[in-house]
């Protein structure tokens, strides 16, 4: 196979970005859409060829596009790594991405900035492909930041929505917090290995001390938590739903948010060295899975329910990584990409049908009016709820079974409760949207219409994948998927296989009962006795309000971090301005100030310079006293003060034999 074909995978969408970005205004929307879709289609085709080749030959393949940063000891190529893990990611990203692009042509039809939308979408594809294909941490990081940037641009796509603008900024800044951790991990890797290439780092990972392995793994985890919206950095994802629905499907469900899971799986060699980090990953994942599911119970915006569901499902993947079930985590990543993209896109179809309505309290009774959307949404719901034998059943059950078999009973319990809640809120969503009495106003009800074929087509394909997507992983722990992925994510210690068939089937039975129980409760509350739900909410108002307000976490973060930083900035700004406001009063005083200053310098600076240490306190005190009224010499005073602090420090330091606190700072 040819190297250029691998390089071409991200280049196709890049060409489309340049074409649509630079020349897009000169041709019609139709052509822009075709360019965008066909570029991703070509990437998908290339990815299929690469995948087929990987199936035949196996092994790891590295392709250098060009020498990128070579300075001193820092050597970084722009290069790609093709192995089973990146093949799976490539197929998911380009395949699901292609379907979503097709769907978007219909969904965004007639919107202002249609070409701009596809430029950003293709730029996203380029970044995401760099992320999953890179052979070193820096290429991964470029993709990582690139997808964040595109996510920012696409969330803020609707210019006129203030909430969208706020959500976009929030997403970017929260992600940057995670990125700071990720960057620190990159620097630690470089410090320890002197290189940033995966193959070399993982080959020598065994030399890391346990503490350093833990430090790197935890820093990477901070990055993963930010990108994959886990506790405590999940708050941006629900807000990100302000963007157009295809964006939510592509970026905030199927691909970008799973980057954290990919990154942990890619770095499993480092995680395997640190039980503490593994436990942290598992706990973060398990807690998030349960926590987000509880919030999802009461939300009323169709996309927000799905957003919390995404956070929760990502929690399962983290849980899988944390207990060493990397294959199961990637398996769940894949099936989740199918059914969550399906759910978002069909939710988009519902919103489309209702002319922009997103509140499920104003829906209902749509099953007859939009039968295709209803059918595929139902399939998505069955898949995510874990109903046998749909995709979600196999992957989620595998993670849970792995937890149970390896004696992580608490985590298993959390996952099981989470699964019950998932099943409940998904069926609640389905009932409220498609069944019962129509609750939309008359005007909307008349205009309900099924979406065009270009939107239904991708939905049907995704529905098909949601049904059969689980079979590559059957039988659990020993399916085709596991054998294929084994070279990439095989743990250092062989995974235990000595599990009895009875236990496996038993756990599957439990999982099915859980899923059915959630369905049953939802059926009872939202179909059989519709008034019971409100009664339940009324009986525990505190719980209901807390959940509805998402545990007040956003407010808490505002109080704790956002406001204090702003206040500090304003306070210092005030300090800067107040000190100098004397100047505004008149230039006349300036001469006087200048004259005063020169005497002052003569008297104190030069004199003090000769007797620095003795006069330091006196002068500093004088300078600070003068800070109140505000004249130019106060600038000078600040400089002198700064200088004296430095002199103090260095002299103290110097007299303590050049050691002292210097080492402590390092």
């Amino acid at each position, binding site marked *: 196979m040819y190297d250029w074909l691998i390089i071409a995978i991200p280049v196709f969408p890049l060409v489309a970005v340049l074409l649509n970005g630079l020349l897009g205004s000169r041709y019609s929307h139709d052509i822009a859409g075709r360019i965008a879709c066909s570029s991703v289609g070509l990437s998908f085709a290339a990815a299929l060829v690469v995948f087929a080749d990987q199936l035949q030959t196996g092994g790891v393949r590295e392709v250098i596009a060009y020498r990128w*940063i070579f*300075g001193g*000891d*820092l050597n970084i190529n722009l290069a790609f790594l093709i192995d089973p893990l990146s093949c799976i990611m490539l197929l998911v990203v380009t395949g699901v991405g292609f379907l979503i692009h097709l769907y978007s042509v219909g969904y965004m039809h007639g919107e202002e900035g249609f070409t701009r939308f596809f430029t950003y979408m293709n730029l996203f594809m380029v970044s995401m492909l760099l992320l999953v294909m890179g052979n070193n941490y820096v290429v991964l990081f*470029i993709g990582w*930041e690139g997808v964040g*940037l595109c996510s*920012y641009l696409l969330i*803020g796509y609707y*210019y006129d929505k*203030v909430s*969208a*603008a706020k959500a*976009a*900024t929030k997403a*970017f*800044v929260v992600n*940057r917090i995670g*990125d*700071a951790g990720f*960057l620190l991990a990159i*620097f630690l890797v*470089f*410090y*320890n290995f002197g290189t940033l290439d995966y193959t070399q780092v993982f080959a020598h990972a065994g030399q890391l001390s346990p*503490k*350093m392995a833990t430090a790197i793994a935890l820093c990477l985890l901070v990055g993963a938590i930010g990108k994959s919206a886990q506790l405590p950095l999940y708050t941006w994802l629900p807000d990100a739903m302000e963007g157009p629905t295809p964006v939510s499907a592509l970026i905030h469900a199927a691909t970008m948010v799973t980057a954290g899971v990919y990154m942990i799986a890619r770095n499993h060699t480092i995680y395997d060295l640190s039980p503490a980090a593994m436990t942290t990953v598992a706990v973060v994942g398990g807690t998030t899975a349960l926590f987000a599911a509880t919030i999802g119970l009461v939300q009323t915006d169709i996309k927000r329910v799905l957003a919390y569901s995404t956070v929760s499902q990502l929690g399962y993947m983290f849980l899988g990584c944390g207990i060493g079930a990397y294959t199961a985590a990637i398996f769940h990543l894949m099936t989740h990409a199918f059914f969550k993209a399906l759910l978002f896109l069909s939710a988009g179809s519902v919103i489309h049908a209702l002319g922009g309505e997103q509140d499920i309290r104003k829906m209902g009774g749509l099953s007859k009016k939009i039968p295709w959307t209803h059918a595929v949404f139902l399939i998505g719901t069955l898949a995510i709820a874990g109903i046998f034998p749909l995709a979600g059943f196999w992957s989620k059950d595998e993670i849970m079974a792995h937890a149970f078999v390896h004696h992580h009973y608490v985590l298993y319990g959390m996952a099981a409760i989470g699964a019950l809640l998932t099943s409940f809120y998904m069926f609640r969503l389905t009932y409220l949207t498609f069944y019962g009495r129509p609750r939309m106003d008359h005007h909307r009800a008349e205009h309900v219409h099924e979406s065009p074929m270009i939107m239904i087509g991708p939905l049907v394909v995704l529905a098909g994948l949601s049904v059969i997507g689980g079979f590559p992983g059957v039988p659990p722990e020993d399916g085709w998927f596991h054998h294929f992925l084994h070279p990439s994510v095989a743990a250092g210690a062989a995974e235990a296989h000595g599990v009895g068939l009875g236990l496996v089937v038993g756990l599957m039975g439990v999982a099915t009962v859980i899923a059915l129980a959630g369905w049953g409760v939802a059926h009872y509350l939202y179909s059989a006795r519709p008034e019971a739900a409100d009664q339940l909410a009324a009986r525990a108002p505190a719980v209901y309000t807390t959940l509805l307000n998402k545990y007040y976490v956003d407010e808490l973060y505002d109080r704790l971090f956002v406001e204090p*930083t702003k206040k*500090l*900035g*304003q306070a*210092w*700004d005030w300090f*800067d301005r107040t000190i*100098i406001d004397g*100047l505004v009063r008149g*230039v006349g005083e*300036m001469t006087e100030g200048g004259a005063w*200053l020169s005497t002052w310098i003569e008297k104190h*600076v*030069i004199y003090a310079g000769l007797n*620095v240490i003795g006069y330091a306190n006196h002068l500093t005190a004088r300078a600070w006293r003068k800070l109140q009224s505000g004249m*130019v*010499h106060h*600038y*000078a005073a*600040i*400089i002198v003060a*700064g*200088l004296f602090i*430095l*002199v103090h*420090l*260095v*002299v103290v*330091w110097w007299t303590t034999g050049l050691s002292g606190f*210097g*080492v402590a*700072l*390092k």
Partner: protein
Amino acid sequence: MTFSLTLTPADLLLMLPELFLTLWLCVILTIDFSLPRFPKRNLAYLSVLGLAVVLANLIWFDRAGMTGTLFNHMFVVDRMAIFFKIFIVVTTILVILASIDYVKRFKFFKGEYYFLVLMSALGMMFMASANDLLSIFITLEFSTFGFYVLVAYLRDDPASNEAGLKFFILGVFAAGLLAYGISLVYGETGKLVLSDIAAAPATPGLIIGYLLIFAALGFKIGAAPFHSWIPDTYHGAPTPVTAFLSIAPKGAAFAILLRLFFISLAAFKPAWVLLLVLASILSMTYGNIVAIAQKNIKRLLAYSGIAQIGNVLIGLAAGTKMGGDAILFYLLTYLFANLGAFAIVIAVGNLINSDEIEDYNGLNRRSPFLAFAMLVFLLSLAGVPPLAGFIGKLYIFIAAIKEGLYVLLIVGLINVVISMYYYLVVVKKMYINEPVDNSPLTVSAPMQAVIYASLAGTLALGIYPQPIIDWVVSATMMFSHIVAPATAVAPSTALPFGG
């Protein structure tokens, strides 16, 4: 000290760029007063032409490997000096092109404006070659004189006058510190050339002398705690002057700082790392946090500049050749991103006569080109890949981690997060907020050239930085003697994480 002034033509060749520029600025001045009808706009192009010749000359020097010293080692030409001269000349060309529209605002002395800009550039080129304490003092003052006038160039604007006076008084004050520091160092060592004073043993007088010099240079680069003049001066000065002031003198001062710390003070590295770490942390944190509160784009860029200088100081704190490489590279990324951002501030200021961030609302609808370019420059300043600023930050942080400067690294990374916020606030205003006035904005040709050049630099340094990296690596070859820290600090293996 014997002082001989025998100069051969071959020696003078080393000063050819400076000599030519001196001649050229006399030509500019002469044309200006002897041909009153000569269009001022053409003076700008004439200045650019002269600078282009200087640039070609410098590139020739660099290719030919021209090195040497003059006047008893006061003036040195080596690859680093040539690098900084090219840095200064490129900045000056872009600043002059960006000034053409703005100069129309001046009521008097339009021609002298270009003369003063060229003169400051000349002074800074000498700074890049300064190799002993006396030439440091003279060149530093020489380059600053032009700025004293330029900052106060808007004669009717009280803010500009204030800024000029403030800058002048504090500049003189800093000059006093510098002279005093130099006299102490000279008094202790009896030597002036930077490489000669390296051998002197540390005495209290010498240390205080060096600290005074550092304070004066810290003033020049606007590092905290010597930054206090920056916001008001940047705010009040004519915007092209602010752009010039925010880039070129900082570059020239770093030429001196690098020589001072890496040559004269190489042996005392353990002693000054802490000093630089503190200055760096203070600059980054202070600059970024105060920037959040700004309402005026020039003040915002002023504080952002303080923070950026904090980042550059990380490379100095690393104190290795790689740190030096990283500084040179970072300054180039800063040149394109910061100049580009200021070019847009100038363009927008010319068109809507405001520098308030509020008035950037909806810029994307009035001029998608300006908004997009600003987005790229701000993201580069914030260090978002694959733009130039990212490679600069990566390079400088890698240099720091190799020396085990964990605390500095972590503070730096936290600051990257904070800075993202205020850059994004501007982006949000440009892209999302509604404009008050919907009329489209058009950009003049020279301004477009500046913006395109800055965009090209910002993208090229990010996507294909290798040629520039090769250049900076060879430019700092003379620092290859500086290796890992001596025994005075903890060996790099004894780290908090036990690596």
